[in-house]
């Protein structure tokens, strides 16, 4: 399992991203609105669930998102890695909850807090705490690039050092697409890849 580093703390990320849009997020004009097109499953567009952590715009492939839920009651997990803030039942399934705030170097924003539950390849659902969830969008594939192909060197470095698999840009706005295996690895104690 790939293991993500927590060294992806980038001080200027929040500000830089905010430069791209009025509030650092996306608007309906910038991404194709849900339901706008006629045929389902257009391979030239990717369905993404977008959300924010401390103003940092994130996204996850919709096919990897089990649900977006209110934050559940949390039970502390002694000995779990730092990003893990506890365990909660979501959809009847015990789900490890983790926060990306520290890794991203951002502070929590007050907002409509949610948990974005990622389904990972090793059957461990992981809930990522989000300050706000902005719904589902369909992003054209020409705006989705892997971290090492991002033209903007700053964004490329940010993407390369985080648990991301892609950067999505639409009309100048940018969001970092989480890699489910990399996020899952954050919940695994060092030395345990099982």
């Amino acid at each position, binding site marked *: 399992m790939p293991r993500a580093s927590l060294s992806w703390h980038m001080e200027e990320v929040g500000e830089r991203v905010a430069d791209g849009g009025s509030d650092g997020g996306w608007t309906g004009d910038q991404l194709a609105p849900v339901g706008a097109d006629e045929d389902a*499953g257009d391979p030239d567009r990717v369905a993404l669930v977008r959300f924010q952590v401390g103003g940092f715009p994130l996204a996850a492939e919709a096919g*990897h998102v089990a649900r*977006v839920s209110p934050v559940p*009651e949390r039970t502390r997990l002694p000995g779990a890695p730092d990003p893990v803030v506890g365990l909660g039942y979501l959809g009847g399934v015990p789900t490890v909850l983790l*926060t990306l705030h520290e890794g991203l170097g951002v502070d929590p924003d007050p907002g409509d807090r949610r948990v974005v539950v990622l389904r990972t390849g090793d*059957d461990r659902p992981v809930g990522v705490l989000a300050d706000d969830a902005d719904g589902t969008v369909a992003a054209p594939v020409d705006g989705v690039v892997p971290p090492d192909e991002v033209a903007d060197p700053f964004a490329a470095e940010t993407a390369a050092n985080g648990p991301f698999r892609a950067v999505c840009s639409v009309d100048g706005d940018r969001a970092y697409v989480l890699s489910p295996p990399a996020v899952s690895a954050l919940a695994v104690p060092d030395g345990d890849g099982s």
Partner: protein
Amino acid sequence: MSEGETGDAEPDAEEGAVSDAFVRENRTHVRSLSEALLAMENGGEADGERVDEAFRAAHSLKANCQVAGLDGAATVAHAVEDLLEAVRAGRLRLEEAEVDEALGAVEVVGAAIDRARGGRPGIDPGDRVARLRAALDRADDAATAADTAGDTAGDAATDTTGNGAADTDGSTAEAFDDDLDPEVREALAAASDYDDLDALVAAMDDDAEEFSGLEGGGAFDTVVEEDPPSPPAGDPDGDSPDDGTRAGAATDEPPAGPRNGTTELDGTFDGTGGPFEGAAVDLVPRTVAAPGAVREDEDGIRVPGAGAAVDAAPTIADSSLDADRFGVTGREVPPIRGESPGSVAEALAPVRSLTVERRRLVAVLDELGVEDARVRDGLASLREATEGLGESAAVGGLRPVEDIVPELERAVEFAARQTETAVRLRTATTPVALARPTVERLVDPLVHLVRNAVDHGIEPPGERGAAGKPRQGTVTVRARREGGDLVVSVADDGRGIDPDELRQAAVERGVVADGDRLSDAEARDLLFEAGITTADEASEVSGRGVGMDVVAHVAEALDGEVSVESTLGEGTTVRLRVPVSIAVLGVTFVAVRHETYGVPSAAVRSVVPVDDATDLGDGRVRVPVDEDGGAGGAFGATRECPVVDLDDALSVPSVPPSDYGVGTGATDAVPDPDGGPAYLVVDPAPTRPEAGSVAAELDDDDGGPGAGDEGPPELLALRCDGVLDAYETLVTPIRGTVGEVPGLDAVAVRDAGQAVVLLDPSGLPERG
């Protein structure tokens, strides 16, 4: 009416009622065997894997029917096994006639199982067995004729006489293809009425329904749905396609066409139940996404809580983008699926959601100061209903591991009788209930293992006496939960396995080359290869090298593993380790400051109030406990134990954390334990049996190698702030949630809806 039903009742009618689980399991074998036979016929020749698959199913049917006392069915299954043995040995090639004959026989076995379930008399296997034997005889005759012709013709490769004694590819099958007995042909024609597998199974299920109606059962549908085929590409969630086709054509006619469940129907679908036009209709059972799960449908992909996106690929890998560029190389989660359909986890998930959400609602109402009696009554009713739902789901979806024991006892009894071996079976199983399919799938391999142990492992009494062993052999079965796994071992104190014999058998079977150098361990692993056996000849019990093959396949199917240890002259131990996704076990809940934790009750020897213990000051305490480690100390006995301060070991914060504004809910509240601070005296080996039990005796006298006398248990004293309560509850191994965290074992939901971490005492740091 099926042939099985028309079979004559056995004069002695020895079959009695069998369990639903037995029927479900063997239904699966009937289906598997039928499918394999059909595939062999359709494939034109029997590839090794297909034969092995069919062989395993036939062998399992034979063994299970023998154990259940269904002798007639067992005899028929044995005859099918013989037929397949001939195929595997290259003496027989399955043509349509042989396949139909075998299918008819399998149908008879299925019918016998149905009859036994209803407590009806068994079937007379004579006719069926005779026909299968006739096919075998013809094959042998043809082989003999071919050999003779070969001898006569020297190196001539073909039979130039045109008599069909041998053909150009060396096959002998055609030698008897035109030589079938008319009665056999008639019987085969009757059997071929069910020339479609689905129709055949449906016909069998009709029988099953008849019986289930008598019993109020009806579990056969479960069998059908247990392992649903994968939906076709492009329709990953199994929903109806939106192009005008529809699953499950409304027709009373048996499906015609190919046997893979797909057929072509004429007509046009007008949306009102009319026929289809040129549509390929998939008739296989469909996977239905769990409620609330992500799903794809005609509106695109829909994520609960986030809305839907149409006209877009659900993942990068599904889009026109090159997945490799994004590092998507291996298996990731399938983009659209519900939880495993039909699983107990799926059934219990919404129940747990209800429980947890009810608890949250109570907390909010408390916060708001709502005291309205109607609200309280409603919540009480909701709790009662939720608990009822949970019990129903658990009862239907879980099965105690110890349920396997009676089947093992019957298997050992049968094998001992057949081999005239003096043997006793001893068992020690952890009191735990697992997902029913997991337990039921373990029955087959364990039956094979104990049969093999008796048939091949245990020596005759005279030989044992000469070797200085007790004249009676012992087979020991243990089952225990280890973290997220169930570990079952079958040990015998017999002759052990000679790796040289295995090497030789493997060379003879062509599994390894003559010059290959295998270690003893590698040689022993060959036991799990199909057809490898050290038995000189097959017996009624075992010896075809199939049983161990079954063990390996079941382990693989359950995502587990199997290993074998053996010492010549001392015995053999085979261990099966399979992961468990969910279990019910006894849990003792304790308070540690403001947090609550659970400890498996099987590990708890006693609860000692802190005031009743003596702190020795070196990280150890002296607690009253009897010499066997059990609760009591009735005669003033004490034990020194290392102490684990749960407060320190679990780094419990002095105040509940509230980072990120997420309250800790139930753990905010200070638990209210009975009594004060206490030591929970535990055995860190979680399945060490109770003192004085048979299992405890086994600990002192384990039959197999590698599991000798473990001595008195080393106990730990877990200091907590009090014991809250103890009861059986549903737990989920934590490995499936957050990886291996030392000291953490599983997660449970307390009856009030609180998620609680279960501790693994062996992983906790001791004081000092």
